[in-house]
């Protein structure tokens, strides 16, 4: 009981400090406040105000009723989503792909960064780096075009190769399971080159003296990689890993939508939360249900970021977000 007045006192003190700082800035830093004002206003209108729309998740929204005229249904939308299995399926797919992207992607990035830093020949290194970096720059629409050119049933290059080798045409766009392999492959294709840079920078940051001392001590090349390079990448690896784990419930809408589109045949293995919300908005409107999924994603997402930030703060305090 004795704590409560003290806590209240602390709160009022804190509030008083916020207000006095603000008064100070209004008096002495008017220009600075004005400079940051466009961003404040922008986020107020396009991020904070729409948070009111979280209420949609608890309604059976209809356009006549609008935000507050639609019938309130409590947790019915959530109950339906979980009872029908939709929420579990979406969560599974979203997390499944993100785990593959994170762990597979990281392994690839580190491996390629080490290879790039150790190969002999600057021109080869430059050219390779430039090429593997290229996919990052093109739009997902183009990625969809590429995928279609390679894999469509009648004219796709892969099917041409299969038939010219005497095989049967393979119906990629009608075979759900194969997309569990194709989607990660496309994601690795697009983002590995770019993701390699950060590890390359970390490798270049390792002191040359450590390597030289090791060579004098007679370590072999592979021992050098194993005992010097890899351990030096650990801080970078840990931070990036934790940060991406924070985003594990947020899917890459662009990637999935450009590859799968509205091909319902493949939804079982490819539908993620973000594509589902999009369809609920655009294809078969159900604002209440879509908002419910969105809210679920947002809450879990926030918890994941807070959790990962907590871990980062424990391990590498200077890299924590807040």
């Amino acid at each position, binding site marked *: 009981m004795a704590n409560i007045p003290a806590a209240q006192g602390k709160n009022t003190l804190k509030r008083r400090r916020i207000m006095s700082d603000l008064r100070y800035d209004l008096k002495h830093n008017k220009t600075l406040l004005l400079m940051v004002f466009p961003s404040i206003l922008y986020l107020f209108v*396009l991020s904070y105000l729409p*948070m009111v729309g979280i209420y949609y998740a608890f309604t059976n929204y209809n356009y006549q009723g609008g935000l507050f005229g639609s019938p309130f249904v409590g947790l019915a939308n959530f109950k339906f989503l979980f009872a029908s299995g939709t929420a579990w399926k979406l969560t599974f797919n979203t997390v499944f792909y993100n785990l593959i992207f994170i762990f597979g992607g990281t392994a690839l990035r580190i491996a390629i960064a080490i290879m790039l830093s150790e190969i002999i020949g600057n021109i080869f290194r430059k*050219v*390779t780096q430039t090429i593997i970096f290229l996919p990052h720059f093109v739009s997902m629409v183009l990625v969809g075009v590429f995928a279609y*050119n390679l894999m469509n049933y009648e004219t796709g290059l892969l099917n*041409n190769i299969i038939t010219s080798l005497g095989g049967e045409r393979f119906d990629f766009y009608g075979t759900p399971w194969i997309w569990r392999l194709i989607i990660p492959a496309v994601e690795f294709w697009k983002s590995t080159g770019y993701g390699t840079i*950060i590890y390359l920078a970390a490798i270049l940051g390792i002191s040359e003296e450590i390597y030289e001392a090791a060579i004098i001590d007679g370590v072999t090349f592979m021992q050098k990689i194993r005992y010097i390079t890899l351990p030096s990448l650990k801080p970078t690896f840990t931070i990036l890993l934790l940060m991406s784990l924070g985003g594990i419930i947020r899917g890459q809408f662009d990637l999935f939508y450009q590859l799968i589109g509205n091909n319902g045949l493949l939804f079982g293995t490819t539908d993620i939360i973000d594509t589902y919300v999009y369809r609920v908005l655009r294809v078969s409107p159900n604002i209440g249900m879509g908002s419910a999924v969105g809210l679920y994603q947002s809450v879990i997402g926030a918890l994941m970021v807070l959790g990962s930030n907590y871990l980062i703060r424990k391990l590498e305090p200077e890299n924590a977000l807040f």
Partner: protein
Amino acid sequence: MSSATKYTRGHATFNVISKAILAGFATACLLPFILMIIGSFTDNTTVLVNGYSLFPEKWSLAAYELIFKYPKQVIDAYKVTIFVTTVGTAIALTITTISGYALSRPTFRSRNRIALYLYFPSLFGGGLIPWYIMMTQVLKLSDSIWALIIPSLVSTYNIFLVRNFIRTSVPLELFESAKIDGAGELRTFGQIILPLITPVTATVGLFIALGYWNDWFLSNLFITTSSKYSLQYYLYNMLNSSKALQELKAISGDISIEIDLPSETAKLAMAVVATGPIIMLYPFVQRYFVRGLVIGSVKG
């Protein structure tokens, strides 16, 4: 690492294997682009009969002739994308740098609270649907070209990049001496700081510009008039209208539907036309993107 050292046997083996793997991966990265370019110069019937190939039997310019026979739509899409990219990048970069500057000033007492306010929406939000309703029903931006610009104007991440760069690379004495010389914050920003932070403005500007150039999603959400489609969405629409028509044809068995169907190769020619500028500029801007990642990874 340094080329002066003598290579051990382990290193030599590693070098050979690595080069083979890297060459393979680089080929995989490049192959779809080559396939696209060759495909766009292939005769359409050859594609329909033999499929896509790296060594087509018959070459043709027909796909490009087809696109540029009635160039109005392509030109409209180009205009939209160029307008959105230049105007959007200019406004976004202005907002980003002035915000980043303000937040970097240690004398600005509310800076960390404002930073938290700017960061919070990346953590938690209403999601796509309430945002969409805000854009269309409150701000009435349906079918407006500003609907393609406004959604990407403010990025907290970019603001923080600028803030951190100023914090770590501009010495505080510079602000002091500017103040002594009687320069206000706006002048200090415009005449002293801005010229010093070009590495980060170039990088952030290119991040933003690339985002605008490659965007198809906002056109998809908000634009209904086809003359206001962005370039990428125009390409997307071309692909999907032909996919949809093919399905319709298969269901109805009505061959006359074929009249308006863009040929397979025309789609690729359009893809080349929509991506060309990016690939041309790529070698020159690549280093700014590299720098951006490195700046981002060092926290101030």
